[in-house]
């Protein structure tokens, strides 16, 4: 009966389904977007292996661009800061990295990507991911690539030679997937920097580094250490592990607000639409309900009939919305620069949870909107309704 009732007014049913679909699509897209960004930030932070990230003043966003968004960028400071950081109370270990950006055709035979030069003696960031892969240290003239870069440079296989900044490097392996921005980089030992400076136009001096990673002693307070560094060395900015991605979150804050506002408005609109349409439906069918009640239908029969109709509408609208929202997310992931560069994609489980949330939300709005007209209808006295004829 519910299906036949819905087919009575196809245009009205279509409008309601379309409104619900739009609302659910917006929800699925917003949830997918926010979840993906948050997961990427959390994963990067969890897997970083350092408590503090120390960069030249003003380069904080650049570091996050690399670690969270996989964006190739470079910034430099003097190597001497490493020794100054080491001396600060609470610091256990430090390791420096230097970031270089390759430019296709000009310096290098690989597509534009990040080259990370790191100190193998002090490193605790890259080494854990290459231990099983290489089983030894990188030699001068050797490089190991991030799991994503293997595809980027069409490597796929190891033992290939590529020109980087005028020097030829042997690609000796592919790193395990870290789930962070490091996956798209090419890693070399910092012993190569002098030669890169000599052989290329790279905008770097031999005594420069990009970032210092610091591990704290067990009992050290990260806030104290951070303020100690920033107060004593004004040329540096410090990012705590838990704050990585904060600037991205701030940037996304306004986008998220727009999402949420759109969601709230479309929810109110859908709720109003469902209420208005079901009020009209209830008014149209009062006589039929009166006849059914006179023939012995209980209040629960009336409620069940309308509830089923509402659920069918809600389910159709939600399913269309979930498909549209998921498709939108996938399309946007290709064109939205924020999404394109995020290291983490949504798992099937997360996608299922988001879809389920969309289904629950869509049908929930439908039930909520129809509640008042259905309640009114079930309480009508059959004779009054029948006599309206």
């Amino acid at each position, binding site marked *: 009966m519910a299906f036949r009732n819905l087919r009575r007014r196809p245009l009205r049913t279509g409008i309601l389904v379309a409104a619900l679909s739009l609302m659910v699509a917006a929800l699925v897209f917003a949830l997918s977007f926010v979840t993906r960004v948050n997961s990427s930030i959390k994963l990067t932070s969890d897997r970083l292996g350092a408590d503090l990230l120390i960069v030249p003043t003003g380069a904080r966003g650049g570091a996050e661009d690399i670690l969270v968004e996989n964006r190739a960028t470079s910034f430099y400071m003097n190597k001497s800061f490493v020794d100054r950081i080491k001396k600060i109370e609470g610091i256990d270990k430090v390791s420096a990295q230097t970031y270089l950006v390759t430019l296709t055709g000009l310096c290098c035979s690989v597509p534009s990507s990040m080259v990370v030069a790191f100190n193998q003696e002090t490193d605790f960031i890259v080494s854990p991911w290459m231990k099983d892969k290489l089983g030894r240290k990188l030699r001068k003239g050797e490089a190991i690539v991030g799991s994503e870069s293997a595809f980027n440079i069409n490597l796929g296989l190891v033992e290939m030679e590529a020109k980087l900044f005028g020097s030829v490097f042997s690609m000796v392996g592919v790193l395990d997937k870290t789930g962070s921005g490091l996956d798209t980089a090419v890693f070399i030992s910092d012993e190569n920097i002098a030669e890169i400076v000599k052989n290329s136009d790279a905008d770097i001096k031999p005594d420069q580094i990009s970032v210092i990673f610091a591990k704290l002693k067990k009992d050290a307070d990260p806030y104290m250490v951070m303020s100690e560094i920033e107060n004593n060395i004004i040329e540096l900015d410090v990012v705590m592990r838990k704050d990585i991605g904060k600037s991205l979150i701030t940037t996304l804050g306004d986008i998220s607000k727009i999402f949420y506002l759109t969601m709230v408005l479309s929810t109110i609109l859908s709720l109003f639409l469902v209420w208005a349409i079901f009020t009209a439906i209830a008014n149209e069918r009062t006589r039929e309900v009166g006849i059914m009640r*006179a023939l012995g239908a209980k209040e629960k029969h009336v409620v069940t009939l309308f509830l089923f109709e509402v659920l069918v509408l809600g389910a159709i609208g939600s399913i269309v919305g979930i498909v549209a929202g998921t498709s939108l997310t996938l399309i946007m992931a290709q064109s939205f620069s924020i999404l394109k560069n995020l290291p983490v994609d949504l798992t099937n489980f997360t996608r299922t949870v988001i879809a389920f949330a969309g289904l629950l939300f869509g049908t929930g709005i439908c039930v909520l909107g129809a509640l008042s007209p259905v309640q009114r209808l079930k309480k009508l006295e059959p004779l009054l309704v029948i006599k309206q004829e």
Partner: protein
Amino acid sequence: MPQIIVENITKTYLVDTAPIDAVRSVSMRIEKGDFISIVGHSGSGKTTLLSMIGGITRPSSGKILFEGEDIYELASDRVSEYRCEKIGFMFQFASLLPILTVKENLLLPTVFRPRPAGREAAKAEELLHLVGLTEKINVYPAQLSGGQQRRVAIARAFMNDPALVLADEPTGDLDEETEGDMMRFFKTMNESKGVTFIMVTHNTDLAKQTKQHLRMNQGTLQTV
């Protein structure tokens, strides 16, 4: 014990804040197997009285006992069960649901039964045969004439084997011949199955064919 005892019932409606008595202090006793006709002018309270006996509108005062049980003392669901299992309604207008076929309309009251009786489909076909509409079983009400719709509604009233049939101008849309056929059908059900009938009609010839004739006048019930 009478099957139905109507004890001093009154139904008052508020029309523009002024109370109007549609039915005034009506009392009657109906035995099982009675066939009662009620005549009267429009607005005299016939339909309201029938509806109160059928449990579809609550009296403002007074009692209606069906087989000794005050139906308005029952919970809402039990009143629905009373309507479903004991009463067969024929309304004064075409009362079929437009989205259901003739057969589905006939089966509708059986859906609301707390305990299915079985053989519903066969029974629907049998009743349709009795009202002469076998060939229309799978059509929708919109494809039927007013008289045919009325006959389907008559058949539907017998689907749950009611003890009491409340018929509100049941033959209003029918031609003379079909009206006669339907009246014979009612009499057969009354005599062979002991179904009690209360029939509201404007047709005095039809009223004369019943066992007992009553008249409603300005909300009061009088014996003719």
